[in-house]
């Protein structure tokens, strides 16, 4: 209990001159003045807590909002979108009455501070977003970026992050089917831990975060509320209201995956019995966010009695309870006559559930504590009417010099021996090496529906056992490309994820993104951000894949040094019958290898330029979205009609990287012939976009060539699946054993 009088609405109105620590809570002066203007008086401590956290960059998107609008304005016509941007996660129609929800979010900063818990709670948060839509979570993916692989701190951060993702996701019973691991010195001190999840439901089961129906009850269920993750609220509690109280608390939340597993099962059971009117998970900003969003999205107001919130720490102040980010909590709105049944289901799963309030007729969010009203606000002003900034942006001066530093001028291998040496070096480099040491720490079998998992081009999950209907997801991003040209870099990220989905035989449907950038207060970073969004929105429009939602992570920056602009793009696809999926691994000796697409001398931002020359300059590969769409159509048709037995998209590392991966996974070698008009170096290392390598059974050769010819896709026969080496004829051969050693030893040697 505070020793000072409770800061009620009444008290606030009577004491207009009390100074509140708005600056310590991260509010700017004009933002605080706006709060006073909205309320017509000074806020109470509890109100200040709510506004400050809901108006933070993380919750309000105040720097990014003006740019993010393009995703809506340029959204392509799509029949597939059932729920778009603004809900907990977007929902896509995948046919046969099924809907799929998916989203990618960042948990970058906490994962640097405390890798295990930061990454674990990242998984927990994204999974709650999925259940809040009414869906059963069916898979997770984790795009990760770390500092240099051999930097000592990477050995602290990476194993912790990987163990956290595994420890949490494995315990939830969610197969981890995809993602990426990228190393670059620019992420030193700012690792990117993005977490994605997919959920499946029937159309009629879609749930939304809104509180409607006067008299309906608001039920908080899941873990008790503790003092973790309250950050700024501690300042409020200790400095203003009770400076005698110890309030040093962990800034990073602690996850309990067992509790979350119970929460999933009990929520889904309540959905099944149609007990839920509206639902919201408690993530960032905890109860502040859940109550204000539920109330502002519904038709009425809401009254909450904070005393009824089950606590883990009875000394918490009301401000702390409102801001606590304790994990594994959800808030449901339930009709009065269904409350008993709802509580019964929670009890069955040993989940604590408490009625903490109800929906009211009015339009105010009122919160009570010890009988006093401590919050009385229009919930929309908290949840939706935060500040919006038009941050200045400007193309950085160094951009021209960077683009002029053409990677085409770098010394190329002068002999077959040197070429061979560079191939070995490439496939062994940390970014191109096998990530098996990491991915084997994730369960990819659980739920018994995993058709494809990493290192396949996309992860694929069967969602209907009878029909074989499935969904695929790929996440991609290339910070090096985006640094050279943020507009093209964002488009290339989309193109690669789109291509990866199509390569496995699935039709790309929709996009989610996680936009990781430096400080928005730096005009150069803001320019990168604006350009990346413009590029992504334009490309989504052209490819017909709407953005369904996503996440922005700013301030990934230490001092003056921002990370490479890193838009990570997730593409979701659908496949009518997972039996038609195309794997990466070579299947049968004698099958013919074809290169689809055009190969140009494009080395800017390439893996080769990084591994061999430690160089970043020039322009990224040219973007041709119509070509990507055509390539995708060909790959999907070929897969459906059984014309190809394996396929691999070409991206970082170029053709040789793709062939080596297919060979090692299939335990079958390849004989390659350098096509006319290309030199061996360009053939092997170019990173031209819009390409894939496919293995065609001899019986299908004619049909496949005819199809490509008829549709105008360039196709070049480049060799055959054969032997136990990768043999580039006239140049060099590397045995599979030698390649395996090079490809698989790197990561364990650095990190195990």
């Amino acid at each position, binding site marked *: 209990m505070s020793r000072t009088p409770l800061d009620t609405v009444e008290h606030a109105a009577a004491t207009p001159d009390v100074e509140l620590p708005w600056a310590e809570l991260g509010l700017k002066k004009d933002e605080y003045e706006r709060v006073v203007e909205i309320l017509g008086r000074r806020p109470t401590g509890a109100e200040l807590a709510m506004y400050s956290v809901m108006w933070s960059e993380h919750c309000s998107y105040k720097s990014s909002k003006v740019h993010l609008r393009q995703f809506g304005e340029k959204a392509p016509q799509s029949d597939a979108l059932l729920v778009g941007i603004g809900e907990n996660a977007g929902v896509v129609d995948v046919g046969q009455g099924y809907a799929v929800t998916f989203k990618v979010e960042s948990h970058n900063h906490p994962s640097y501070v405390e890798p295990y818990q930061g990454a674990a709670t990242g998984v927990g948060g994204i999974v709650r977003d999925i259940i809040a839509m009414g869906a059963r979570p069916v898979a997770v993916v984790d795009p990760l970026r770390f500092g240099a692989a051999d930097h000592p701190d990477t050995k602290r951060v990476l194993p912790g992050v990987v163990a956290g993702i595994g420890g949490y996701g494995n315990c939830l019973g969610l197969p981890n089917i995809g993602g990426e691991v990228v190393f670059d010195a620019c992420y030193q001190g700012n690792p990117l831990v993005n977490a994605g999840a997919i959920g499946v439901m029937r159309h009629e089961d879609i749930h939304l975060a809104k509180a409607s129906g006067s008299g309906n009850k608001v039920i908080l269920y899941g873990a008790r509320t503790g003092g973790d993750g309250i950050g700024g609220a501690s300042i409020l509690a200790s400095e203003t209201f009770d400076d005698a109280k110890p309030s040093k608390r962990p800034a990073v939340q602690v996850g309990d995956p067992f509790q979350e597993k119970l929460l999933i099962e009990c929520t889904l059971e309540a959905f099944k019995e149609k007990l839920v009117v509206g639902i919201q998970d408690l993530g960032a900003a905890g109860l502040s966010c859940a109550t204000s969003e539920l109330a502002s999205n519904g038709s009425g107001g809401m009254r909450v009695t904070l005393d009824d919130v089950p606590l883990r720490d009875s000394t918490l102040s009301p401000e702390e309870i409102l801001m606590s980010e304790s994990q594994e909590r959800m808030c449901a709105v339930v009709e009065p006559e269904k409350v008993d049944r709802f509580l019964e289901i929670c009890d069955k799963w040993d989940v604590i559930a408490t009625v903490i309030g109800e929906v009211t007729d009015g339009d105010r969010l009122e919160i009570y504590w010890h009988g006093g009203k401590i919050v009385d606000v229009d919930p929309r002003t908290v949840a939706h009417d935060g500040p919006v900034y038009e941050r200045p942006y400007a193309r950085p001066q160094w951009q021209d010099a960077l683009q002029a530093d053409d990677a085409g001028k770098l010394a190329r291998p002068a002999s077959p021996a040197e070429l061979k040496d560079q191939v070995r070096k490439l496939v062994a480099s940390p970014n191109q090496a096998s990530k098996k040491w990491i991915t084997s*720490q994730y369960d990819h079998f659980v739920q*018994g529906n995993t058709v494809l998992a990493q290192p396949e081009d996309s992860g694929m999950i069967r969602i209907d056992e009878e029909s074989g209907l499935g969904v695929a997801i790929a996440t991609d991003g290339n910070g090096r490309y985006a640094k050279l040209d943020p507009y093209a870099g964002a488009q290339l990220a989309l193109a690669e994820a789109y291509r990866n989905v199509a390569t496995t035989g699935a039709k790309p449907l929709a996009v989610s993104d996680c936009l990781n950038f430096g400080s928005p207060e730096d005009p150069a970073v803001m320019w990168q951000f604006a350009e990346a969004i413009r590029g992504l929105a334009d490309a989504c429009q052209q490819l017909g894949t709407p953005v369904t939602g996503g996440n922005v992570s700013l301030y990934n920056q230490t001092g003056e040094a921002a990370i490479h602009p890193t838009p990570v793009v997730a593409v979701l696809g659908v496949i009518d019958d997972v039996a038609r999926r195309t794997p990466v691994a070579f299947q049968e000796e004698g099958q013919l290898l074809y290169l689809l697409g055009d190969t140009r001398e494009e080395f800017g931002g390439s893996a080769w330029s990084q591994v061999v020359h430690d160089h970043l300059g020039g322009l990224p590969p040219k973007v041709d979205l119509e070509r990507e769409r055509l390539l995708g159509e060909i790959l999907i048709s070929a897969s459906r009609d059984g014309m190809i037995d394996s396929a691999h998209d070409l991206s970082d590392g170029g053709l040789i990287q793709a062939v080596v991966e297919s060979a090692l996974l299939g335990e079958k070698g390849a004989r390659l012939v350098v096509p006319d008009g290309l030199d061996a170096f360009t053939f092997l290392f170019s990173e031209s976009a819009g390409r894939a390598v496919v293995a065609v059974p001899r019986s299908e050769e004619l049909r496949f060539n005819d199809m490509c010819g008829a549709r105008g896709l360039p196709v070049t026969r480049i060799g055959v699946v054969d032997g136990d080496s990768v043999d580039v004829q006239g140049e060099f051969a590397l045995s599979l054993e030698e390649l395996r050693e090079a490809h698989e030893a790197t990561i364990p040697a650095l990190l195990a």
Partner: protein
Amino acid sequence: MTARIGVVTFPGSLDDRDTQRAIRLAGAEPVALWHKDKNLHQVDAVVLPGGFSYGDYLRAGAISRFSPVMETVIEQAKAGLPVLGICNGFQILTEAHLLPGGMLGNDHLHFICRDQKLRVENADTAWTADYESGQEIHIPLKNMDGRYVADEYTLDKLEAEGRVAFRYVARGEAAHGYGNPNGSLRDIAGITNEAGNVVGLMPHPEHAVEPLIGSGRTDGLPFFTSILKKLVNA
């Protein structure tokens, strides 16, 4: 008439639905059992599935072992009811003293998920009759605490009585992902009780029952066809 095979769901069980699917694919009828319910609902056999029951808190399987359903499972297993424990289910069986020994954390201290090569050492149990003795199979493995340990006397006794049901086998060098994955003593992956009705193993046969899914092999299906034949022919 087919056999009814119960699958227990504990709080934190993960592979319960997958195990029900495997039972169905084998041609038997899966019956969901609930940890708080002592009644086994006239099932002919019981599977304790994988997962992290009670979050593996305290020690894997240590809390579940005291759940109401286990009272009946323990009693009836001693009377001959066929019981299979997979991964967390194996851990529960050792905690319940239906099988000897126990599981420690993997020697490399990481969770490990991979397609694992095993040798069937005993094809005479209720759950392995459809295999050949000495047959080598691939079954997915995924665990954090999978290192089988027991005292020397127990290990010798298990060997002498032919009660090592499955052993990890190497294919050339262990670095390629084969061989003993976690430091289990004598490469033990699974064991049986004296009567052959109770079997436990760390790998997951229910994840190897469909050609398209998971490992792409169906090497796990004989677990479920073995028990079905035994029950239907009984």
